[in-house]
């Protein structure tokens, strides 16, 4: 028999309470439950897979340390993803400071992943770089991860209306940048 969402929520609450009492096994089970989605949230904010991995690890560590402040009657996922997105935003800020401090000797060549050799993906990757960090995050969190405007606003610390407007502008920019591909 397939467990219902209510069963899943009850099971998750049990795990949270056990983790709050110090069970690392229970926390590991929570990591198993949420790490894929957490990766998706982090990947929406940062530019690379490696940074997303780092943000996920940082985020889970922060969540573990803050676990005693979490009220188990609230949805754990929403709380966790907010922490993960904060960890990812911190990483982006640190990267910006580091990049601003380092003066490149030469213009770096764009990294070519063999798996991304396809033209659309390359064009898309370039187009995403033209968006602001927040617009890109909102677009990916909404269109790839399926979060609502309200959830995105809560994760990124912006009003729901701002998330909605960022999404609109991100889509308009992408449509403009990829007009020739989209007209196929």
């Amino acid at each position, binding site marked *: 028999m397939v467990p219902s969402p209510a069963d899943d929520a009850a099971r998750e609450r049990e795990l949270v309470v056990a983790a709050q009492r110090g069970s690392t096994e229970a926390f590991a089970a929570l990591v198993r439950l949420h*790490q894929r989605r957490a*990766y998706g949230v982090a990947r*929406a904010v940062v530019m690379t*897979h490696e940074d997303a991995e780092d943000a996920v690890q940082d985020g889970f*560590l922060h969540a573990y340390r803050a676990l005693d402040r979490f009220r188990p009657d609230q949805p754990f996922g929403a709380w966790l993803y907010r922490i993960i997105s904060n960890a990812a935003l911190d990483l982006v800020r640190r990267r910006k400071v580091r990049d601003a401090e380092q003066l490149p000797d030469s213009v770096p060549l764009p990294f070519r992943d063999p798996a991304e050799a396809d033209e659309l993906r390359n064009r898309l990757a370039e187009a995403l770089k033209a968006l602001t960090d927040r617009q890109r995050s909102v677009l990916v969190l909404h269109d790839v991860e399926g979060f609502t405007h309200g959830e995105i606003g809560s994760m990124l610390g912006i009003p729901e209306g701002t998330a909605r407007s960022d999404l609109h502008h991100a889509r308009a920019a992408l449509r403009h940048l990829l007009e020739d591909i989209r007209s*196929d």
Partner: protein
Amino acid sequence: MSDYVRLHREDDPVTRGLRELHAPPAAESYWSELEARIMARIAEAEPAWWSELGRWARPALVAAAVLVIAAGVLVFRTREEATQIAYEDVLAAPTPISLEGTARPASLRGLHGEREETLRFLITY
């Protein structure tokens, strides 16, 4: 067609491309390894918590000792004050000495009575 529909359709090439670009790794072994790394970092962080507690233990003990000493001094002073007040009360209370003197029989006055009379005489003149 609105942006939403154009960019959100499952068969839309941009949406598909976005999903491919941001797709999480598919291999199950990757996730087991990531979980292990997360839990290893948590295990590393735990001794830090204990050492942090250890770092605060010495100042906390000193603070507790100072508090105990201060409380002891306070209690001692309070008791001393109470004793002092009790003594002062006793000393300030009227004594029956003068009455005793007047009520003393003449036979007992003896030398003391004579000395007193001499002193009175000298003071008067």
